[in-house]
């Protein structure tokens, strides 16, 4: 179950949040209610014209990488002109982080905001086709909802380019940009080696714009309300709002739309000063709760402990759970989700997973902690994608955050009373190539 709510605005900021999620709470918007709230789609009548607004707004990708959107738009426009190829636009809703639920919630509650943004992005780069790529299994009927939304738009004649729905296999890496391109091209959803960048040579060799679905929803609103409106919330260097998936002690995901720069203390609630917080999901960073509550939700602040906003996942690990046991479970999952293409990832991740399982047990060998640290260093920066890097970041932060727990385990003790798994993991791992298709 997911509940959607609005976060408290940071002190002193003007706010009209929520911007993306329907203000009426849980009721999904159809075409009629959507246009009643937002009006028509403000097409610019020619490619390129929207780019300046997006640049002034300072919109960055909400899929995790926080890459400036105007730079991707410009790269695709430039590549299209240089190669005389019509570009393709892809809305990435393949929310592969098991702990995240914000994209599925957005697509469920406000599909037309995403689809408006997709049309405006297509116009901005001069694309003639658009694809919406999602995990259809993430939420029952989301595919049907999206088909319905697309049909409503066809009936209303609102769209410039046709939108195709495409389904991602249930793999952790299937939302990764090159894996997505590989899959939409008919192959498995496994990463490829860049360069060339997909903005230059993506789907079918065409310059390709891939944007997260939430990013597109923001883009559609900036086109309507302007960059100054967008910057009314957030920080000066990281403007706007973002959707977050918050999991507190009961593990139930809560989706909140909050301004960048919001204090984590307000997001986490009474998480207290003990326990630990996972910032940014399974490629993210563990931090002691006492440290986390002094930070704010922006890359400038989180960067001080080596963490990033990512796709806005914040998880408070309940004090009765063992952080080492949780980390070992997740790293085993991440190792199984490796595409197995690159030697360091293929070899390093299973070894880290096995060693962490040992550290999470009773009386691990002294050498094991050093082994994990060495392997984390060895895999970093050596894959075609960032799967090994993200896994290593997660593992290293666990060794630091749960250092006292590691000592306890070496003495044959464990501080956790509750053995039930806490962090969510999807069922089933890839066994054959079919599982990546």
């Amino acid at each position: 179950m997911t509940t959607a709510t609005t976060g408290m605005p940071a002190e002193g900021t003007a706010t009209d949040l929520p911007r993306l999620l329907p203000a009426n709470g849980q009721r999904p918007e159809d075409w009629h209610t959507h246009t009643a709230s937002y009006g028509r789609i403000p097409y610019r009548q020619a490619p390129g014209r929207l780019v300046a607004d997006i640049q002034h707004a300072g919109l960055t990708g909400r899929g995790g990488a926080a890459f400036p959107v105007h730079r991707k738009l410009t790269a695709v426009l430039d590549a299209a002109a240089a190669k005389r190829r019509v570009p393709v636009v892809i809305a990435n809703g393949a929310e592969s982080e098991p702990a995240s639920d914000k994209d599925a919630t957005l697509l469920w509650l406000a599909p037309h905001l995403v689809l408006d943004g997709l049309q405006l992005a297509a116009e901005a780069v001069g694309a003639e086709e658009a694809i919406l790529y999602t995990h259809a299994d993430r939420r029952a009927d989301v595919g049907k909802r999206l088909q319905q939304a697309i049909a409503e738009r066809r009936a209303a004649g609102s769209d410039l380019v046709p939108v195709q729905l495409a389904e991602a296999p249930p793999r952790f890496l299937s939302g990764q940009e090159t894996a997505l391109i590989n899959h939409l091209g008919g192959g498995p959803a496994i990463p490829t080696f860049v360069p060339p960048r997909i903005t230059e040579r993506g789907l079918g060799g065409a310059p390709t714009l891939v944007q997260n679905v939430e990013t597109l929803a923001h883009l559609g609103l900036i086109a309507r309300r302007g960059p100054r409106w967008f910057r009314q919330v957030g920080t000066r260097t990281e403007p706007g709002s973002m959707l977050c998936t918050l999991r507190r002690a009961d593990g139930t995901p809560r989706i909140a739309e909050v301004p960048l720069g919001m204090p984590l203390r307000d997001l986490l609630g009474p998480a207290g000063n003990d326990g630990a917080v996972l910032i940014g999901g399974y490629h993210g960073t563990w931090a002691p709760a006492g440290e986390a509550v002094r930070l704010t939700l922006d890359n400038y602040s989180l960067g001080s402990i080596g963490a990033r906003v990512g796709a806005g996942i914040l998880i408070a690990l309940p004090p009765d759970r063992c952080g080492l046991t949780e980390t070992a479970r997740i790293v085993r999952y991440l190792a199984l989700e490796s595409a197995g293409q690159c030697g360091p990832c293929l070899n390093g991740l299973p070894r880290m997973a096995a060693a962490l399982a040992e550290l999470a047990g009773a009386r691990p060998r002294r050498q094991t902690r050093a082994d994990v640290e060495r392997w984390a260093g060895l895999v970093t920066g050596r894959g075609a994608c960032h799967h090994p890097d993200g896994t290593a970041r997660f593992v290293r932060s666990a060794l630091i955050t749960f250092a006292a727990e590691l000592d306890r385990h070496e003495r044959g003790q464990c501080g956790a009373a509750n053995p039930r798994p806490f962090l969510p993991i999807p069922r089933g791992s890839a066994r054959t190539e079919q599982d990546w298709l």
Partner: protein
Amino acid sequence: MTEKLLVNPIECEGHGACAELLPELIRLDEWGYPIVDGRPIPPVLERDARAAVSACPTLALRLTRS
């Protein structure tokens, strides 16, 4: 114009020929995969770098200009 070594980690199968021919810039990790020094190649090593690139059985190693 300087040249750098770049390994395509998907193509690389860890044959190790590169490390044998260019130990100054390439060493192997504990699984036999190359750890490549990505800094500009010193002129004195350019010939050996080219030899290492040509020797790769999977064409995973290449030179890039920057």
